[in-house]
């Protein structure tokens, strides 16, 4: 559905002579909440901290940074003047990892744990120029594909019993669903239809529980699982090119 809408927009845009075609591409710095995944990371950090503080255990494993900041790239096109319609594609990624080793009674206990979240979206976008050539607001909606790559090798000193341990192994969990975004873009014209853009926006992207081979994501093993909430804010810088059709 999203593909069809995007294709229709491009075709209609290309045929609409007398309009303006705007093409933009840029980088994004994005801030997500990842509340459920970060709860798993906080739980893991509690475990790491507990072992780090054990005087009988040598070595230290750094705690995991929460999933917050990510980077991405976006390309889009808009056709119209004043009110423009078009499409855009965005790729975003967030990641966190840690590795180290504990030593207890002469035996090593290595730890390596990493999470990487990726999001790819295809959206139809509508932009309205509030201040022509300078400030535009945009709305976008479409489909997103998300993946969570998880890998963990986590061994604890053996005289401990702790009801939670990050599950060992590697898996890629996937999910897809509708996404939406709003943004405000400030343009700084450089001449000849070229402008630098500075934009802020927010994206709504809630995918529920992703699965890996039919297995739902449940890293903390509580049976309730974790949802993949990629709802996020972003700050972007872009290069915009305007062509008169």
């Amino acid at each position, binding site marked *: 559905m999203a593909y069809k809408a995007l294709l229709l927009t491009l075709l209609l845009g290309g045929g609409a002579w007398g309009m303006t075609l705007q093409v933009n591409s840029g980088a994004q710095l994005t801030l997500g909440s990842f509340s459920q995944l970060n709860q798993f990371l906080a739980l893991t950090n509690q475990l790491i901290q*507990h072992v780090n503080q054990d005087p009988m255990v040598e070595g230290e494993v750094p705690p995991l940074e929460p999933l917050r900041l990510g980077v991405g790239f976006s390309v889009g096109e808009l056709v119209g003047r004043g009110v423009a319609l078009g499409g855009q594609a965005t790729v975003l990624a967030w990641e966190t990892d840690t590795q180290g080793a504990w030593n207890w009674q002469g035996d090593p206990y290595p730890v390596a744990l990493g999470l990487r979240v990726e999001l790819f979206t295809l959206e139809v976008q509508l932009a*309205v120029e509030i201040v022509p050539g300078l400030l535009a607001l945009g709305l976008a909606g479409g489909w997103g594909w998300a993946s969570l790559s998880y890998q963990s090798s986590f061994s604890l000193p053996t005289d401990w019993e702790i009801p939670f341990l990050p599950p060992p192994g590697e898996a890629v969990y996937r999910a897809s669903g509708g996404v939406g975004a709003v943004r405000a873009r400030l343009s700084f014209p450089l001449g000849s239809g070229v402008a630098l853009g500075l934009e802020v926006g927010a994206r709504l992207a809630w995918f529920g529980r992703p699965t890996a081979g039919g297995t739902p994501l449940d890293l903390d093993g509580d049976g309730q699982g974790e949802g993949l909430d990629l709802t996020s804010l972003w700050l972007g810088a872009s290069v915009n090119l305007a062509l008169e059709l």
Partner: protein
Amino acid sequence: MSMRWKPLVVLGIGAVALLLGGCVGRWRTHAPQALFALRPAEGVAPLTVTCDATLSYDEDGTIVEYVWDFGDGARGLGPIVSHTYQTGGTYRIRLEVFDDQGLSDQIETQIQVEFPPPVAQFSYAPWRPGTGEFIRFDASSSSSPNGEIVEYRWSFGDGNWATGQVVEHRYWYGGGYPVTLTVIDEVGAKATVTQVIEVQGGPGCYTP
């Protein structure tokens, strides 16, 4: 700004506000997260374990109460508690934490407490038996902290064996024979003891 764009602007600002609210999650209330460490993870009864729930945390508040259920009918309160399991078995230890907003979380694990082994002992008479003479083996001094001993197994060191608390056996050749008693109590715990019996007379047939 043209009047016809105002609804769109208002709509956009409203959407941004809604998304910001969803993203930041500032208005959400988070439940605490229960987690504890248990030491030792296994052992023989009576086993005293220490449970440390200071690993539990609350993202947006304070944990005010720690409630323990040790699975043997005993309960406890506090972030760090000790408990002694008097008898063997599999027990479920459950921790429930409550935060200052009344929210709670719980987590549980199982602990395997091994039964203590019985004590295997036996005496025999006569003290220096001869070949062909009946020897009386008596295991009635064996005991178990877990209850009754339900099985006595004897191995006489010459290829023969028997069961029973008191048994008799005789040897046809002189020499030393390792007699082994294995006792099994009502919970399945085992213990073994071996004594070497010196049988007088005749050619020796036991080679250690």
